[in-house]
């Protein structure tokens, strides 16, 4: 069984909501659309207070190439354009919409019939990329990098294959799993569209073998597409990391930053993104909803919900049995890389793959003990770094050494802190060091330019 070549850990899977069918979440009373739902420049609001919007109406337009537009997922009236607490735990510009009814823009095809690529022979690479760009699609795995940017390789680079990330290596999360079980055919059309967009003949879908039903179904459905290969992978975190996935599937290693996957000829997209691309291109539906796993050991009904973007998390929690009394931590995303939220009144965004409720006991970190130099972090690091050293260098502010030791290669997967027997906050320190060193590198580059 294939997997990536170095490091990695195997956290308890806790896929509580595995096999739960996707439920349609109720419409919210008020939806809040943050203008910062992607990496890059924030969208610019194009509506004002009092404007009437429908499902699919443009709320914010993309600001530059690395940016994405934002569409309304509900119909109603814009109540204000103001700052709102968003999933990054900061207040940023957002559009508030008071929901009235559920009216859709006429251009959107709401039927569930499967449209295959062969039904639309007129689609070429540019048309697909333009559609994807216009629909505001971003990386749905959580990184939220604008999708069209990845589909346009920089000059001189040529894509050789498309790799679809259906690994879902984060514990607890089952959103991609359930999406594959219910929309396998649509996903495969999405994959074909991506392959067409970047002009490659080969597509891989990497799935960890803790989802045998999804592997089986995808294999059956993919039988009609000989150029798409389903690759079962050994369960290992962080296989869903872009670089790890490429290593696992085609055995190539992306060099240290600033190299990106295209340097080894790979374009990686999440399986949720493939589905969104299908809907955008074939159904003319912008990115207005996604599957989110709402889960937690104390939660009554862990579920997979198809929810409209902008729905407050509190409402999603209520649909799954309400917030348990012993809640200690609410995490947007998975437990390894997700972000602890400070409130439940935060709206769902394009990158919300999960909502994990941890009870007070699970939530608290254990007491920090001295480093016993056991080297388990070195063994766990999937990037071949020495986390113990990077952490120490960061806390002692030895930035030049930290840079030489490759701190910028860190993918912040958390394997080191996960495995540390002394419960040391390795990744906290490394993150600080990485941010600082990146700042130093940037200012050095700026100085060199001027």
């Amino acid at each position, binding site marked *: 069984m294939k997997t990536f070549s170095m490091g990695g850990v195997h956290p308890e899977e806790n896929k509580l909501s595995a096999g739960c069918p996707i439920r349609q979440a109720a419409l919210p009373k008020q939806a809040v659309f943050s203008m910062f739902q992607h990496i890059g420049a924030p969208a610019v609001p194009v509506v004002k207070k009092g404007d009437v919007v429908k499902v699919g109406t443009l709320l914010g337009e993309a600001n530059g190439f690395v940016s994405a537009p934002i569409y309304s997922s509900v119909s109603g009236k814009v109540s204000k354009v103001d700052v709102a607490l968003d999933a990054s735990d900061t207040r940023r510009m957002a559009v508030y919409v008071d929901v009235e009814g559920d009216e859709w823009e006429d251009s959107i095809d709401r039927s569930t019939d499967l449209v295959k690529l062969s039904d639309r022979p007129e689609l070429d690479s540019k048309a697909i990329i333009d559609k994807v760009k216009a629909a505001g699609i971003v990386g749905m795995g959580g990184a939220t990098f604008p999708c069209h940017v990845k589909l346009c390789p920089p000059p001189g680079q040529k894509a050789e294959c498309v790799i679809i990330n259906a690994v879902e290596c984060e514990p607890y999360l089952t959103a991609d799993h359930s999406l594959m079980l219910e929309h396998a055919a649509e996903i495969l059309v999405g994959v074909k569209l991506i392959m067409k967009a970047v002009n490659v003949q080969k597509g891989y879908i990497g799935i960890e073998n803790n989802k045998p039903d999804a592997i089986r179904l995808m294999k059956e459905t993919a039988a009609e597409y000989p150029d798409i290969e389903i690759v079962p992978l050994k369960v290992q975190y962080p296989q869903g990391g872009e670089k790890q996935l490429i290593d696992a599937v085609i055995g190539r290693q992306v060099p240290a930053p600033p190299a990106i996957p295209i340097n080894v000829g790979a374009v990686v997209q999440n399986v949720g993104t493939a589905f969104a691309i299908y809907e955008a291109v074939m159904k003319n539906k912008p990115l207005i909803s996604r599957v989110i796993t709402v889960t937690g050991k104390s939660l009554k009904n862990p579920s997979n919900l198809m929810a409209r973007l902008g729905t407050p998390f509190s409402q999603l929690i209520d649909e799954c049995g309400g917030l348990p009394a012993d809640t200690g931590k609410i995490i947007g995303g998975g437990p390894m890389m997700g972000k602890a939220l400070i409130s439940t009144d935060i709206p769902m965004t394009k990158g919300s793959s999960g909502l994990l409720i941890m009870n007070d006991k699970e939530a608290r970190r254990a007491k920090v003990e001295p480093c016993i130099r056991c080297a388990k972090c070195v063994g766990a690091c999937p990037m071949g770094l020495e986390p113990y050293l990077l952490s120490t260098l960061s806390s002692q502010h030895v930035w030049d050494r930290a840079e030489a030791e490759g701190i910028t290669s860190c993918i912040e997967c958390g394997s080191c802190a996960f495995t540390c027997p002394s419960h040391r906050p390795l990744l906290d320190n490394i993150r*600080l060091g990485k941010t600082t060193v990146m700042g130093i590198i940037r200012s050095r580059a700026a100085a060199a330019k001027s």
Partner: protein
Amino acid sequence: MNVILIAVCVLGGIGLISAAVLFIASKKFAVWEDPRIKEVNEVLPQANCGGCGYPGCAGFAGACVKAAEDGSLSDLNCAPGGQAVMEKVAAILGLQASAAAPKVAVVRCQGTCDVRPHGVEFDGAHSCRIQNMTGMGETLCQYGCLGEGDCAAVCLFGAITVNPATRIAEVDESKCTGCGACAKTCPRGIIELRPQGPKGRKVVVLCNNKDKGALATKECKVSCIGCGKCVKTCDKFEAITLGTNLAHIDPDKCKLCRKCEEACPRGAIKAFNFPPRKPKVEEPVKEEGKA
């Protein structure tokens, strides 16, 4: 006797050879250094605080000598040593010292636990910069003091500490040298270096909140809401400007009349080191203001 002789010869021989090696090495690998660097270094405070922007006092001394060759020391200042040290440095290098007003660090946040409740709890490495990466931190104010004491950790003079009761950093002005290490390390830019002022007197907006009024009110009881009352009060001197929902007092223009402190409905403006106020009727400054 023979044994002693052999021992003396052997040890003496080793000593001689080693001495020769050391002598040759010291000549061969000698690095010429401007002797003035050493002289300048000797008058510096040796705090190695880095406040000057150079790595330690020796680095600063080197920079001084280099600057002296270009003819001016005006870009360089040793904050902990102050004017006295810079004059000595200038004397060594045969130049005039530029006058720099002594500065002191001011923590622009009064959001103590009682006026700015800690709604959530941060669990992780005790560092403001790390806590700041979570976004909001423990309170609802994304501009206020985080209270983990990164500033205290970098202060070499013990001048800044986090009060455990209020969880706000506090500056001991008698110890602060104005080196600016704390201001550089604070992830939220709360700490400002301000001129010490006559007898240490100064009037400062002790808030860094750039949110709109309604939100700022919700976040903290002593936040600046950007209402502009202080700006109007100070129309004569125009020392106060309004940034993004946040007032700022220009220390060069401020006449220390303290009217803005009274005018602020939020108690966000504070006057430092003034004697206790006399009863209002006798306030001469107020009379002038009316006239």
